């Protein structure tokens, strides 16, 4: 093969790659890179969406970190949600996964029942839980009352709103159940049998055979769980909206994070600042904080050896 035809072939290959990637390259530029740069630009500008933007240096950043009353509550809530919701979802997902692979009779039925709630659209699931847990007529408190147990205010009580969201998140455990199930079935049976012959009890078999095999999946579940909490928007927003009995809509003032800021999360602040207060500069500061935090965890997921990028 002569060198010119080789160069021609290279050029043809490059053009072909470019053609196949073109929709995505355009999309990434238009809907990711451009708005990202624009967000960084607006984060140092004073802009209400109407009057021309004016440069204000770090004033927006100072405002968000020092004066904006919702930033630190939202950060604290996010830490709470990461620690409690992500951990519990992993533990319960693993327990349910181990349960269903052992149930022989009716295993398919149980799997379907455990999985179904995951499919409920977030708005529908949230609405259902606000009803189930409403302090007045909600079935949960009615049953607790019959049993003579205390009846919390759930979505109407700042101390109980996050536990209520946690119950909702555990109801939709189906995704983790399926992922853990697949991983558990991949653990070679012989290793359990060998461990049993060596006299390992159930706990030690779990500790020394199951856990090491599940490590990549556990890491995956933890990191994607944290990232999901960075995006946690619909459930807390709708729960606060419906529980407080307010009507939402663009431009209308709704007390964010009802009750008492206990369901505020970072993405809700972008909405509150940018679309309710028309403080676009400050909204972009929050957006950048969210960007940095989620990319930090995305990098964790892509680290070499995590298996996530699965190079051939």
């Amino acid at each position: 093969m002569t060198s010119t035809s080789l160069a021609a072939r290279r050029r043809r290959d490059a053009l072909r790659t470019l053609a196949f990637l073109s929709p995505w390259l355009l999309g990434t530029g238009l809907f990711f890179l451009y708005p990202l740069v624009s967000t960084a630009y607006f984060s140092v500008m004073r802009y209400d969406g109407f009057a021309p933007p004016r440069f204000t240096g770090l004033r927006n950043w100072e405002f968000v970190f020092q004066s904006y009353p919702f930033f630190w509550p939202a950060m604290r809530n996010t830490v709470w949600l990461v620690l409690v919701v992500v951990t519990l979802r992993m533990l319960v997902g693993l327990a349910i996964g181990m349960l269903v692979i052992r149930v022989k009779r009716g295993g398919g039925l149980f799997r379907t029942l455990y999985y179904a709630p995951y499919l409920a659209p977030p708005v529908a699931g949230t609405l259902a839980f606000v009803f189930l847990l409403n302090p007045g007529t909600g079935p949960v408190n009615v049953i607790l009352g019959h049993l003579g147990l205390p009846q919390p205010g759930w979505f109407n009580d700042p101390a109980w709103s996050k536990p209520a969201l946690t119950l909702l998140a555990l109801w939709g455990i189906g995704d983790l159940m399926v992922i853990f199930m697949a991983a558990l079935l991949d653990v070679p049976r012989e290793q359990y049998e060998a461990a049993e012959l060596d006299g390992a009890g159930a706990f030690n078999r779990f500790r020394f055979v199951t856990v090491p095999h599940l490590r990549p999946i556990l890491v995956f579940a933890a990191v994607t769980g944290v990232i999901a909490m960075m995006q946690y928007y619909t459930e807390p927003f709708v729960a606060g909206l419906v529980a407080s009995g307010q009507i939402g809509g663009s431009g209308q003032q709704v007390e964010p994070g009802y009750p008492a800021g206990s369901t505020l999360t970072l993405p809700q602040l972008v909405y509150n600042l940018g679309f309710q207060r028309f403080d676009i500069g400050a909204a972009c500061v929050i957006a950048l904080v969210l960007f940095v935090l989620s990319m930090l965890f995305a990098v964790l997921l892509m680290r070499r050896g995590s298996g996530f990028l699965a190079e051939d």
Partner: protein
Amino acid sequence: MATVTTSRTTPGRAVATVPAGVRRRRALEWVALHTVAVTAALFFVLPFVFIVLTAVMTDEQTLTRDLWPNQWEWHNFADVWRTPGFATWWRNTIVYAVTGTLLTLVSSIPVAYALAHFRFRGRTVAMMVVVATMMLPPQVVIVPMYLFWAKQLHLSGTLWPLIIPLAFGDAFSIFLLRQFLLTVPREYIEAAKVDGCGDLGALLRVVLPMAKPAVAAVALFQFFYCWNDYFGPQIYASENPAAWTLSYGLGTFKSAHHTNWNLTMAATLLVIAPVIVLFFLAQRAFIEGVTLTGVKG
């Protein structure tokens, strides 16, 4: 953990040869395991039961602490359907979900194929950008995006700002398809090319038929994503009720119509039902897709 201690019950395996004590222990384990399974099932199923029971109650009864309906008001579902706007939300949601899913497939499949089977410089970087955009909360870029669609293109009050970007590839779909396409042996593609297919021909005639389960899973995920999307319609469509979707409209349902919990729960069921039906029609593809999102070996 109860599930650990009741591990490895295998009733029926060589029962005749095992001693009575072991047999009794296994029977007990079997009972314990199924007790746990049924108890867990209650947590997942009871919410649905209470939603249905409440959806068919009378207005007066939803204000009481009764759990069981006195009369079964099945017409509540028809009443919800006749609520102003509900049919429009349905139509809009179907348009958004169907158009969005088709555009996602057409735009994402070639990208996934290139990322899985073409060798080029920057392929790893491209993959990393795909994963990064997949992990990106939509709120990060929403402010400039809103300004772009509303101020430059005057498309706020419609669902187009949510549909059009799907014609430019969707990161999650690209990622999922690419993970699957990696498992298609290169020899099949080479063979197709020897037979005179171009790259597009090899993709359409050889690779895609093999990737049907992954394509189905991606289509389902994207359909559900559009169906469930709340933030997108809230940003772009909330100002124009004629463009609302089911997810967005449902969020306003209780307060906007001053309805009681019975009609609100009936509406909730009407939003959940299509997703559950679709799931049962395509269960295998869906579960395979969820598994595919996990780490590959």
